[in-house]
């Protein structure tokens, strides 16, 4: 009918696909699977810590859980799930028919999947037990001769290659394939987020790729990069790791900032406040984010002047981050807020990210960090940023874009139940952990003595974790159920601003029969206005018929 071959179906079509939408969906399925695994690991840790001197899980298993959980959530969930959303929506939002290099795109996904499988295969041998930071010399063969550390090294190589190829693909796509009229100042803010995420990946990943390669040769080929006895230096590992590791934090949050910047205006019925400031602050955060790595090393033997530099650069990041938060609130200010589930998660994101931001500034004060470093205060901080922030934002994005990806609406009531369970569970789990850290509880300990007064808070935290898990399960149930029985979504259920809502839900394989010309940062508003002016019923322009069909 459209002059195109029929859509391919069946499992072979998934294995062989180069369609950015199918690849995007595979990213999302796979990463949510890993998210479940990482979540189960977290719950096991919380069970062990529910009471003092618990013997449920032995030390070896506990440290393996610590390591698997951190690695999974960072390398196999947050970073790649954003690549998944990026894959699905970048071409649709910029008016392109696919990514610049579709086959490279497929390779990126398969590298990620096999990286994850390879890493999890170590569960059947000896999983690594060094924490996701793999500090040398603990990760060296002298202290960890087993193959778990090697599995992790290969995970980093494979997922790193996956991310770099994906990032190059995003950069090429966004630079070259935008619809006519979509200048830099008309690009959706989510696209800004993905673009800068991609540049950061390209800049930061080589550092960890080098570090793990050096670790591999130290372990198996007799080099001594991190071995003091051979003239190496364990601090070199920390520098190389965090030179990647801190930009990684911004890699995990900038696209989410982009999602929030798309969702807040749509559900406030107002244009985003200060578009240019939000785009510019994204770039500023990325630039400064490359200069703060040693704030993870405030307790190492390092001269005060260096610590002061990294404190000041970390403070500097608070400024563009604050700008974004104020811009989002200003977008809501005097708007007409439509409180649907995506907006619930977006507001929850802001509320919780603010706490992570404030605790971030507190731990950037390096003399204060001497007390906070490596305690549960830091565990709480990273979870306020990465869970209260990134994951809540990802859930906002999931509820927002689910209708486009599946053609069906998710259930609002289930969504709100899920939100409140997650909000309550999350804050119950992590708010008290600040206090545990202040009372001297270090992170990554498999148990603690009963006399320290940490029992009650740990129990609260464990109960909260299970409430949080229940909330996540409600959303998963909602998604699975809505694919079948959800209300039909139509092209544009949210009255949104960006181009992905121009095409049918789910979009056809070629995305656009006709690519509209872009006249502003909110092309859908222009299209709706045109339709109204032409006196035609809404929707007739949104499903144009390509010439020659």
């Amino acid at each position, binding site marked *: 009918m459209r002059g195109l071959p029929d859509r391919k179906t069946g499992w072979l079509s998934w294995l062989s696909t180069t369609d950015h939408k199918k690849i995007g969906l595979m990213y999302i399925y796979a990463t949510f699977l890993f998210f479940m695994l990482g979540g189960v690991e977290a719950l096991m840790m919380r069970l062990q810590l529910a009471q003092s001197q618990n013997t449920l899980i032995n*030390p*070896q298993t506990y440290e393996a859980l610590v390591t698997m959980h951190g690695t999974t959530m960072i390398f196999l969930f947050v970073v790649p799930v954003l690549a998944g959303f990026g894959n699905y929506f970048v071409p649709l939002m910029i008016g392109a028919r696919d990514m610049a290099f579709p086959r490279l795109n497929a390779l990126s996904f398969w590298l990620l999947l096999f990286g994850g499988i390879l890493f999890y295969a170590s569960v059947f041998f000896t999983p690594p*037990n060094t*924490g996701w930071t793999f*500090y040398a*010399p*603990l990760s060296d063969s002298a*202290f960890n001769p087993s193959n778990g550390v090697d599995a992790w090294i290969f995970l980093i190589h494979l997922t790193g290659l996956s991310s770099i190829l994906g990032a190059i693909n995003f950069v090429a796509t966004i630079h070259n394939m935008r619809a006519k009229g979509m200048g830099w100042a008309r690009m959706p803010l989510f696209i800004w987020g993905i673009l800068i995420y991609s540049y950061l990946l390209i800049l930061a990943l080589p550092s960890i790729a080098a570090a793990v390669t050096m670790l591999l040769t130290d372990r198996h080929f007799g080099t001594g990069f991190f071995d*003091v006895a051979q003239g190496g*230096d*364990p*601090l070199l590992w920390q520098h190389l790791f965090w030179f990647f590791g801190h930009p990684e934090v911004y890699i995990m949050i900038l696209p989410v900032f982009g999602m929030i910047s798309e969702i807040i205006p749509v559900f*406030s*019925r*107002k244009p985003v*406040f200060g578009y*240019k*400031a939000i785009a510019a602050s994204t770039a500023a955060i990325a630039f400064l984010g490359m200069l703060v790595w040693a704030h993870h090393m405030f307790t*190492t*033997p390092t*001269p005060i002047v260096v610590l*002061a530099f990294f*404190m000041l650069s970390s403070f500097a990041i*608070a*400024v563009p981050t*604050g700008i974004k*938060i*104020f*811009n989002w609130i*200003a977008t*809501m*200010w*005097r*708007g*007409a*807020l439509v*409180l649907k589930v995506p907006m619930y998660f977006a*507001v929850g994101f802001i*509320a919780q990210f*603010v*706490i992570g931001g*404030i*605790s971030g*500034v*507190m731990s950037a004060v390096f*003399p*204060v960090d*001497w*007390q*906070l*470093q*490596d305690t549960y205060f830091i565990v709480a901080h990273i979870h306020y940023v990465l869970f209260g922030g990134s994951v809540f934002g990802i859930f906002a994005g999931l509820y927002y874009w689910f209708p486009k990806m599946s053609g069906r609406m998710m259930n609002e009531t289930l969504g709100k139940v899920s939100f409140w369970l997650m909000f309550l569970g999350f804050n119950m789990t992590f708010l008290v952990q600040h*206090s545990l850290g*202040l009372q*001297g509880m*270090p*992170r*990554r300990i*498999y*148990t603690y003595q009963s006399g320290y007064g940490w029992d009650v808070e740990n129990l609260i935290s464990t109960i909260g974790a299970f409430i949080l898990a229940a909330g996540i399960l409600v959303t998963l149930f909602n998604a699975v159920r809505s694919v079948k029985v959800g209300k039909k979504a139509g092209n544009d259920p949210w009255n949104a601003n960006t181009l992905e809502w121009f095409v049918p839900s789910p979009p056809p394989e070629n995305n656009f029969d006709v690519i509209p010309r872009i006249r502003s940062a909110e092309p859908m508003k222009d299209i709706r206005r045109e339709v109204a002016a032409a006196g035609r019923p809404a929707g007739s322009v949104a499903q144009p018929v390509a010439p020659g069909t």
Partner: protein
Amino acid sequence: MPRRRALILALAGAAALLLALAPVASASWIRPESGGSPNANDISTLYTIVLIMGAVIFVLVEGLLVYSVVKFRRKRGGPEPTMVHGNTPLEVGWTIGAAVIVAVIAAITFIYLPKIKNPPNSSANGLQQLAGEDFASLNQPNPPNGKALRINVVGQQYIWRYDYIGAPRLTENRPVYAYYQMVVPTNTTVILQINSSDVAHSWWIPKLGGKADAIPGHNNYTWFKISKPGIYKGQCAELCGNNHADMLAEVRAVPPDQFKAWLTGQRQAILQSQQALAAQRKAGEGQ
């Protein structure tokens, strides 16, 4: 004007919270541990100042957020919102505001830093006969008069070892040592040189100040000065292997006279056990 009203509301809320926070901020569960050593106390004070500034920002931002969610819901048949795209003076204003806040925090940090970093002299009622023995390092902290009890702290899986290098020795070049519990004199400045013989560890007794990582191949330094005799507990803060959680440590502070007695006793006990060991070995060789 609703905007002004909201602002006043938020400021009033912040002020109310500050008043409420004053007693709360002194509670032990909301601040780092302190009370053992002046540097720990100064860190705790610095932390509290930053916490209160953070609390004001928290109340302001969350207040604006909640107010917006409650106040600006879409009403059926209500007017469409005004299409505001930005407001440059406002945006420049909050950018400068945020920058000023972090600049103030930085300034306060630099005011407190010397007190936290630099050890004071020992008090008159502290240990007097302190050897002038230094660590072989240029960047160690030193009290103004250069006199302190110097202890070398070595991390190893999963115990801490203390070499009393600034005290009378076992032999020419072997200092008296102890494991797990470090005994120190009160009112005396103790400077710790921290290193590791295997993997990375982190020395931490919360009431006596911040952490100092023990990194193989490097020396790290910290200090404390305890006025109240007692036992101060802590544990390794850097994941050092499966039994990281069992790497506990404690510092026992005793009056200088008792410390001297302990040191003499410890010295004798080590020498005796070495002699016993040597005798055993000899007996073993004779068989």
